[in-house]
């Protein structure tokens, strides 16, 4: 993993010292809220419906056992004993008091973490494939590049007051698990004639105007990355719209000017930025690559795994849904579900965090990942240890076998916490998961992603859910709008609106009708919901959602 340099540590310590002073002055009354608000936001501190919320970056979703334990310590000492993992590979603490936040930031600095640039019109925490450095299908680990981008963008003078926030995601695999096409910039490591480079995708985003990113270059040589990114951001900084907050994101710039015009402008700017870089970035990259070198794998028998797999149906079910192919022989990637049926998606108690930390330390080369799907991953575990890992997870409510299934729901905090929400999302997720668990249909249904947002900002990625749910306020009543056919992967697509919204009490039965219709419509047990939807289109699903409309027409 990347370790802070002396410079990094001093920088964070200084920022924390400044913020402590700012909090003191706010509490003493010498700073007004108007003066203080931008300062707290720069440090990841929001004011929500019922309390403050501190958002802490987990850079590219990678953390070690010590860092996870520190989250547990923070949750116990200054919060309510839990944390919420988010779609942006962050953790949010929902209940800190203002006066405790400087201590929390110091506790984070002790484990090389911070909350800078988790808010505001800056380049945000770079997100990455959560299976980075482990996946069997990967060309190269994207995290050294993610770290390079983080260092380049953190506190970069040109990028502190941009037209709007800017989000970058990166993957090293053909299979996109980082939703790179729904980011301002998406990067995919590609190989041409044995040379590594990047496909650069620009202008994706969700929110009120959802767009799938477009390819700006198919192959950018590795050494050109930072000057090229600087050129992209700089072109947008110059021609992006500042007159209207909703039109300021680069997706609108790309949409209004066209990808070809943007490509030309970027090329012209790149000719200048390239001169300024002179290759120092590549020596940094080499250092980061060393920091992310692969763990030393061992070659051991896997009998313990085979035995448990054939004798223990509960273990087998978990192994079938929660494991992913690892590149090293005898190893596996284990996803720990934070979606126990009926629980809040993405929440982990301090006790659960400590168990995950301990498992990572004892069996997982001390690595953990946060996925944008709001789960935690042990990226490098030997098959022989999995029965033991599963047994320990079971004891603490973390062994739910539902990865990629209907109850593995992404849900934003919605109106239970978020000041911007127009409706709740968490209870809808809880009810859907509970209902399909009762029906015992989850494994039969197979791969199906539901994603829920509590307002048009789309923090819950509803546009790219196979089934998307958007909570709105319709004349003072919570109303839930369904979109169908969204896709968050390399075949990214924005879902189609199915029709009028449903009330909070009618949305879960509507989802049930929809899914039962799919079970009738699919050609075989292997045809996923998305495949059936792509084959048949909206009509049969719409009929299932709105049976009254059909009755009227008849």
């Amino acid at each position, binding site marked *: 993993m990347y370790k802070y340099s002396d410079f990094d540590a001093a920088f964070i310590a200084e920022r924390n010292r400044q913020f402590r002073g700012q909090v003191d002055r*706010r*509490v003493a*009354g010498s700073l*007004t*809220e108007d003066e203080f608000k931008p300062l707290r936001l720069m440090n990841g501190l929001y*004011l*929500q*419906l*019922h*309390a*403050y919320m501190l958002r802490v970056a987990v850079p590219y979703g990678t953390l070690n056992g010590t860092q996870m334990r520190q989250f547990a310590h923070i949750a116990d000492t200054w919060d*309510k004993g839990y944390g919420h993992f988010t779609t942006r590979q962050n953790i949010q603490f*929902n*209940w800190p*008091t*203002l*006066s405790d936040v400087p201590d929390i930031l110091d506790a984070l600095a002790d484990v090389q973490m911070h909350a800078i640039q988790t808010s505001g019109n800056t380049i945000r925490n770079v997100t990455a494939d959560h299976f980075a450095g482990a996946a069997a299908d990967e060309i190269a680990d994207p995290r050294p590049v993610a770290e390079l981008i983080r260092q380049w963008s953190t506190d970069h003078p040109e990028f502190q007051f941009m037209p709007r926030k800017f989000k970058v995601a990166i993957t090293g695999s053909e299979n996109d698990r980082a939703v790179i096409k729904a980011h301002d910039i998406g990067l995919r490591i590609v190989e041409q004639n044995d040379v590594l480079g990047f496909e650069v995708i620009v202008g994706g985003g969700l929110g009120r105007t959802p767009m799938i990113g477009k390819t700006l270059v198919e192959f950018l040589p590795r050494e050109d990355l930072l000057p090229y990114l600087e050129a992209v951001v700089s072109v947008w900084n110059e021609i992006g719209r500042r007159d209207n907050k909703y039109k300021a994101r680069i997706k609108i710039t790309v949409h209004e000017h066209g990808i070809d015009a943007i490509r030309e402008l970027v090329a012209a700017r790149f000719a200048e930025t390239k001169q300024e870089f002179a290759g120092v970035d590549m020596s940094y990259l080499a250092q980061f690559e060393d920091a992310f070198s692969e763990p030393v794998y061992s070659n051991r028998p896997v009998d313990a795994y085979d035995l448990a797999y054939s004798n223990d149906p509960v273990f087998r079910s978990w192994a079938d849904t929660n494991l992913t192919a690892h590149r090293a022989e005898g190893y596996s990637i284990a996803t720990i579900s934070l979606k126990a049926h009926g629980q*809040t998606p993405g929440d982990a108690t301090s006790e659960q965090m400590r168990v995950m930390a301990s498992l990572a330390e004892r069996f997982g080369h001390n690595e953990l990942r946060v996925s944008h799907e709001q789960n935690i991953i042990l990226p490098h575990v030997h098959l022989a240890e999995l029965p033991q890992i599963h047994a320990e997870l079971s004891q603490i409510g973390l062994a739910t076998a539902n990865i990629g299934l209907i109850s593995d729901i992404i849900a934003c905090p919605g*109106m*239970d*916490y978020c000041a911007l*929400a127009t409706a*709740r999302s*968490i*209870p809808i997720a*809880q009810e859907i998961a509970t209902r399909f668990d009762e029906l015992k249909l989850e494994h039969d249904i197979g791969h199906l992603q539901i994603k829920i947002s509590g307002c048009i900002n789309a923090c819950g990625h509803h546009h790219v859910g196979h089934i998307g749910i958007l909570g709105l*306020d319709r004349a*003072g*009543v*919570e109303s839930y709008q369904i979109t169908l056919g969204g896709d968050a992967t390399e075949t990214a697509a924005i879902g189609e609106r199915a029709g009028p919204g449903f009330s909070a009490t009618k949305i879960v039965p509507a989802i049930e009708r929809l899914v039962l219709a799919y079970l009738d419509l699919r050609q075989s047990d292997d045809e996923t919901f998305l495949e059936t939807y792509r084959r048949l289109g909206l009509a049969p699903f719409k009929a299932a959602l709105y049976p009254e409309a059909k009755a009227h027409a008849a």
Partner: protein
Amino acid sequence: MPRPYLPKVITANALIEGDVVYMTAKGMWSRCMRDAEILNDEADAQIRLIDASAQSDDVVGVYLSDVAQGPNGAEPVHFREEFRRTGPSNYLHGKQEGQAHV
């Protein structure tokens, strides 16, 4: 046609905890909506809002919120205000926690 005036309360979040607070008739902040003063006159409500907003050392984000007169004082008319006075629905945290202890 102008919308009819709805009774209001003054609400905000406490500076240190962020907890939802309401302005009482005595000009103090209370954590409990039942204690809130109901402002039935529009001009009066505006003046009280200006006064309350000046207390920025104790609270953040002061605004007027529509209410209805209930048997025990003000009742929210919008679900957002219902959640604000109650707390989140997934855990008994916030104000609900306080109530569980009394």
